[in-house]
């Protein structure tokens, strides 16, 4: 259920107050509101908040809504600063308007456009959206150590651990170099893989230090 801008502003404040500033509940009187205010009424009807006396807490749905409002606001700030080059003093007011425009779908697009930023220009964390989680997982799955590959998985060598001189020399001698195609044949009791036309068996320490850019099906 879509809620009004005023109601969004309230749950945004509440979400920050409760989740980031670690308070139990929010005293509505501190916002100059009471249970008769129309926005509060709206939130109560939408079962976004629970009221006891003048203290309000977020329901599960309210928490989720608050989170997306905060996310949209901070994304808006990033957009204004990073892309539209807005001056600092205008950011806050513009963002207030922007955040209500960025509805579901659009906020994801902005997030992707901005490269899934983790913080707003003021250094506060931007709550992760689904798109961020997906992007992170993909990144993790694009490059993995040889030991993390599944049997039969293929890819190309991305890079390898070069901290130990001797170990590195061994890799170079084997022909482990960026870009060389590799396929994991077996992972127990030792790691067996095809490197171009040569088959090698190595132990876990070596398999751990070779990273492979996995080719997707």
């Amino acid at each position, binding site marked *: 259920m879509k809620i009004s801008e005023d109601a969004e502003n309230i749950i945004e404040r509440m979400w920050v107050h409760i989740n980031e500033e670690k308070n139990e509940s929010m005293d509505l009187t501190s916002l100059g509101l009471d249970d008769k205010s129309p926005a509060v009424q709206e939130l109560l009807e939408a079962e976004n908040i629970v009221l006891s006396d003048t203290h309000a807490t977020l329901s599960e749905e309210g928490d989720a809504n608050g989170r997306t409002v905060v996310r949209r606001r901070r994304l808006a700030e990033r957009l204004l600063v990073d892309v539209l080059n807005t001056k600092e003093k205008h950011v806050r007011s513009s963002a207030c308007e922007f955040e209500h425009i960025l509805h579901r779908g659009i906020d994801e697009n902005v997030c992707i456009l901005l490269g899934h930023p983790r913080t707003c220009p003021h250094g506060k964390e931007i709550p992760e959206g689904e798109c961020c989680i997906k992007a992170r997982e993909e990144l993790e799955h694009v490059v993995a150590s040889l030991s993390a590959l599944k049997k039969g998985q293929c890819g190309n060598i991305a890079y390898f651990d070069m901290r130990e001189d001797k170990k590195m020399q061994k890799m170079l001698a084997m022909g482990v*170099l960026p870009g060389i195609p590799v396929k994991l044949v077996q992972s127990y009791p030792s790691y067996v893989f095809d490197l171009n036309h040569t088959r090698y068996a190595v132990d876990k320490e070596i398999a751990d230090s070779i990273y492979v850019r996995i080719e997707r099906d």
Partner: protein
Amino acid sequence: MLNFLNKKSCCSVETDTPGDLERIILVGNPNVGKSVIFNHFSDSYAVVSNYPGTTVAISKGKTKIGEKEFEIIDTPGMYSLQPITDEERVSQNYLFDNKAYVYLHVIDAKNLQRMLPLTLQLIEAQVPLILVLNMMDEAQHRGVSINASRLEKMLGIPVICTTSINGEGLDKLEDAIAGYSFQPGAGNVRYSKGIEYAIDSISSLLKSEYSISKRSVAQMLLLNDKLAYEKVKQNNEDTEVIRRIVEGTEKEYSDPLNYTITVERQNYVNEIVDPVMKTDRIVYQKGIETSKENKNSLGQRIDKLLIQPLTGIPILLIILYFGLYKFVGGFAAGTVVDYLEGTLFGEQINPWVIENFNAVVPFPIIQDLFVGEYGIFTQAVTYAIALIMPLVGAFFIVFSIIEDTGYLPRLAMLIDRVFKKIGMSGRAVIPMVLGFGCATMATMVTRTLETRREKLIASMLLALAIPCSAQLGVILGVLSFSGTALAIWAIVIAIELVTIGYISSKLMPGEKPSFFIEMPPLRLPKLSNVLVKTYSRMQWYFLEVLPLFVLASVLIWLGRLTGLFDIAVRLLGYPSQWIGLPAEAGLMFFYGFFRRDFGAAGLFDMYNAGMLTEVNLVVAAITLTLFMPCIAQFLVTVKERGIKTAFAMATFIFPGAFAVGFIVNYLLTNFGVVL
């Protein structure tokens, strides 16, 4: 006709060839068929097998190509001019110290991309060079075709295609060698600015001449190569300035120089290989070619079974059961030895020799030396031929077959995890298995292991707990009266092996072993290769044991004349009695000092004479297995590991063997175990 019979010696033993013949030197990665080419040309034989690292030292031979005689040299496999293991260092050292008529760089054609960097390094070194694209059959099988003439133009050196295993292309190689004249190769890599600058500055500092180009020496120095620094120091070059250049260049690059240079060289190689090599992919899948034919071939299916623990371990046990227990322990130690020792020598040859010798030489003292109870002929020669040869021969046949199929790297891969627990990598399985043949030979092969620590642990365990084939054969034969007896022996030895390995891996300082091994495709062993290899190993073995056996006979003879023999045997009689054996068993341990197998032969004699009870047999077998490394192995250990280490091992092993024997005897008798 077995024409190999007139080939000289074997087994990576350095043999000196007289004269100042011009040299042909074989270099290349491990397992590309250098030794096969060597054997084709040479009058001596190098042991060839389908696993990396067989040639542990330089083998030399003579050959005639065209009208000219050459010395031909096989070097241990090396991956690049910057060595990692001792075997590679041997090759690098050789390159530094010797001028050659021509180098043959042998590579596996299908792996052109991976092996060409070494060719480029050799071209940079400006040595006379022919590139041999070997194993063309396997390349063709995988749909790889190479435009050799184009490659030849790009590199500026002769390129010859061969399939050495069936002799294809070797005539062309011969022509190329005969008609070779030096031409500096064209494939010179240009590295990035900073590296080129460093190489130029270092080479301009080098004042002396080297057998390889200054550019090449400079590159090694840039990579902090130990040997290069040594050589340069010997020539009184200014190493201080060189070091400063190296340090400056290292700072310029964010990645290690070794890495940067290798990547730049590889990029250059890729540019060469791209237009030269074509792969017809029947099924091209994710960067790795898996042609239908290959995927479903019998070899690959067997390979799969061998490397999966679920099927691989049962297969290993089957191989051990039939290969070792049935063939060596049953057939060779039983049937063959019974016939040779009991019938042929015991009833026919020896009585005839004794009779005739005594008739010709009427002096009892001399008679005693040659045909007496411990005589050179009646004991040393009889033992060597009738008892030891069949056992060792049988073992080496099995080992050579297993070796040629390419099973050993697969075994190493299966066992690596277990071996890590006792301080060694899977690679050590090769000397360990070979140790079951002859621990002396195996101690030499520990050279292929990477770290000092691993070599030490491997030589230690070889000296301690691995019975050689003669011992094994005799013990399997002697203990075959009861499965329990055999099991007790095997378990005690295994416990000792694991415990000592585990303790030494915990106590010994040094790097933990790391494991990598190349797994060549499985091949069907060639009968001729197996026979030649078995023959040359047995020849080596025979030349190794016979003099020691004879020496033992002579010493015993002297000892008996002077009475020292009785004292020695009586002294060894005490520990024998402590472990519950009759005092006469001292004789067996006395033999054991000379050769492990000689001790086993002594055990065999006492068993035949019915001097030992069942418990005695088990205890004797255990003590003898754990007993002192024999003189031959001891000498090799001294050579490979140093005299201090060797003595330390001996002082630990000798009382250790009797202590374990004592415990086993105590337990077996006190618990009244019936075998």
